[in-house]
């Protein structure tokens, strides 16, 4: 039966994250010279709070908890690299459990050294004409590239560590190069699809946090900014736009949480819900942060005002993960291809057994 309250464990973990993120002085990495490097102190604190695997043995956090964490990371715009890392470690762990020869060694190294796993979705099979991007590639020790056909992973080349390209958000983005030494991740397309679904869900949750925080910033500003002798929040054009932004933020939060819940509780719906969550987050999240920035007038576009960072980052992470139109089409295909006797294709309930009878 519907119960939307996080459990005690979740609340305790989220409380820990709130403290760490509040005290964090960086987003998880620093620019240094012409390149960048990991903020080791923050990274260690984040890892300490996030035992990922093995979930099944009760030692790790559930996937739903990871989605709640992603929401908080998005809201603070700090530690976003943890999202790709968590999804990546889960994929490597899954591969190791399936007998992958290389994954266990990678996991041991990651655990021993606090290594960072970066993801490169939309890999395009390492096509040199469309080289894949990794949002945290510049500080990653291991990188997994994946698309619908499969996933491959490799250790980051020492010569490329720290090599960052400027990007829409303040993220340690790296453009990957086709290289020797990529190992196929055990599990083939199925493992890659699971990784993609988990990654989409976590990113959607993070966008939900970004949308909510941007809406809160704009709401606070609308109460203190006066024009025509009144707080601008009293004007319906502003108030109703912020109400819509709340609607967007609430919707993203619920849909990404439902997808994360389905990962274990309703696995047959997980991939579909992850597509829904991402498609909605990319679209509605962008709308929410755009309006939030608009509320600030010209100040919204100034680097000193944090709302613009949400505007940039929502778009950046969406672009990195996938095409929201394609995600909607993927949902549409599931709906259209459902058996005709189940017109209510998206119901969690049994097929419409009475149709026609």
């Amino acid at each position, binding site marked *: 039966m*519907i119960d939307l309250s996080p459990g005690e464990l979740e609340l305790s973990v989220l409380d820990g994250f709130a403290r760490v993120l509040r005290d964090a002085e960086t987003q998880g990495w620093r620019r240094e010279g012409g390149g960048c490097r990991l903020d080791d102190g923050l990274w260690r604190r984040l890892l300490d709070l996030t035992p990922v695997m093995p979930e099944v043995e009760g030692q790790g956090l559930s996937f739903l908890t990871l989605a709640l964490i992603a929401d908080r990371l998005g809201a603070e715009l700090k530690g976003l690299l943890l999202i790709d890392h968590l999804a990546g470690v889960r994929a490597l762990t899954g591969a190791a459990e399936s007998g992958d020869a290389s994954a266990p060694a990678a996991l041991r190294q990651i655990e021993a050294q606090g290594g960072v796993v970066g993801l490169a979705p939309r890999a395009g099979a390492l096509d040199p004409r469309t080289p894949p991007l990794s949002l945290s590639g510049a500080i990653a020790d291991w990188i997994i590239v994946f698309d619908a056909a499969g996933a491959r992973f490799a250790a980051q080349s020492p010569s490329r560590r720290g090599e960052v390209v400027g990007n829409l958000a303040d993220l340690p983005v790296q453009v990957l190069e086709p290289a020797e030494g990529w190992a196929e991740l055990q599990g083939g397309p199925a493992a890659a699809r699971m990784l993609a679904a988990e990654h989409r869900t976590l990113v959607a949750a993070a966008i939900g946090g970004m949308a909510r925080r941007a809406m809160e910033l704009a709401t606070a500003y609308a109460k203190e900014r006066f024009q025509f002798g009144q707080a601008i929040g009293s004007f319906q054009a502003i*108030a109703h736009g912020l109400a819509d932004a*709340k609607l967007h933020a609430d919707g993203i939060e619920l849909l990404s949480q439902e997808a994360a819940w389905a990962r274990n509780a309703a696995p047959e719906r997980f991939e579909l819900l992850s597509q829904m969550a991402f498609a*909605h987050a990319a679209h509605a999240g962008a709308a929410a942060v755009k309006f939030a920035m608009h509320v600030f007038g010209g100040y919204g576009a100034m680097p000193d005002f944090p709302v613009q960072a949400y505007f940039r980052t929502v778009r950046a992470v969406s672009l990195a993960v996938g095409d929201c*139109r394609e995600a909607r089409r993927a*949902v*549409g295909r599931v709906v259209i291809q459902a058996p*005709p006797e189940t*017109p209510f294709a998206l119901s969690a309930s049994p097929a419409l057994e009475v*149709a026609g009878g």
Partner: protein
Amino acid sequence: MDFSLGPEVEAFRGEARRLFAQHCEFRDGIYQDCRDDEGVLREMGRRGWLDLEREGSMTWDMKMFVLSEEAERMNVPLKGLAATFIVGFTLSRVGTEEQKQRILPGIAAGTTRVALGYSEPGAGSDIAGTKVRARRDGDEWVINGQKQWTSSAEVADYIWLLTRTDPEAKKHAGLTIFLAPIDTPGITIVPIHTIGGQRTNQVFFDGARIADSWRVGEVNGGWKVLSTALVYEHGGGNVPGRSLSGAIARILDLGLAHVREAGEAACANPDVQEAFGETAIELELTRLLNYRATWIGAQAEKADIPGAVFKLLGRQGAVFASERLLELMGPWGLIREGAGGPENPAVSAIQRQFLATPVGTVAGGSVEIQRTKIAERGLGLPRPPRG
């Protein structure tokens, strides 16, 4: 956290489907108009599904959610049931024993229906601006004036009537509510037909005399009674009746019936897939926001803001869905049913939804009212000056 409805509620969904299917024809891939709405209501009453005393239980609320969703999807109107339950719940809190005994058993049996008499020609969103006048005359009240958009009055046994009893008092202070038998002499119902095929009504009061025993709450205490009723209308719980997710699901079903008939090329069209995907996402969101409002309401917390968020999304979503899928019909979408052109039942049904769904964005508190509520009470934004 749990996003499932649980086996009891899902089993109930199956029961509801079977009952509705007995009264609905499934033809051409869609459910046709329900043949016997009154029969459905009576059967629901016989099965104990309309038991008002179960209000507040999460299981009952979610059962009412799936019941309403299935009814809407299968084109069973359950006409007047939502208004009836809003009044039933309110009456069980603030009514006299006599009123409860006269009304509530009939509601539970599915034989008594009530229409809401709030809106007037000059009082829509600003319902406290009501002008229908009630004057006391001994043990009776004499009612004069006009109500507007009084849906289901044509099938109702009573009208839940907001009146002005003290024109000199401040706007919210001079109001009183009555539960007036609809067959009272002096009450005239005049139909209004919408472009979407819905019927609503004007109700005229011309010296209608109502016994004081039909007064609900104190004289001039109508706003307090109304506020209780509005909690049910705008709050988190699920009164059985209209369903926003059911409306979107029906539109989705209708579109599917059409596109499957259109063949593989249509199904493989990326634009078609995207339209169905977007509609399916709106359906899922509407359900989730409804779950949340219901869940918060069941925690005995105020759920008016989650309720407003849900209604804002769902009402707009139904409009968007019908527009989007009508667009997919191409020129077929413009042909009116029974007007001499080629007939396609699914297309006609989508066209009816296209014409009918915009009313949902103004009925029972417009989407602007929902936004204002979210902004002022949910986000704490300052109110604009109001008269």
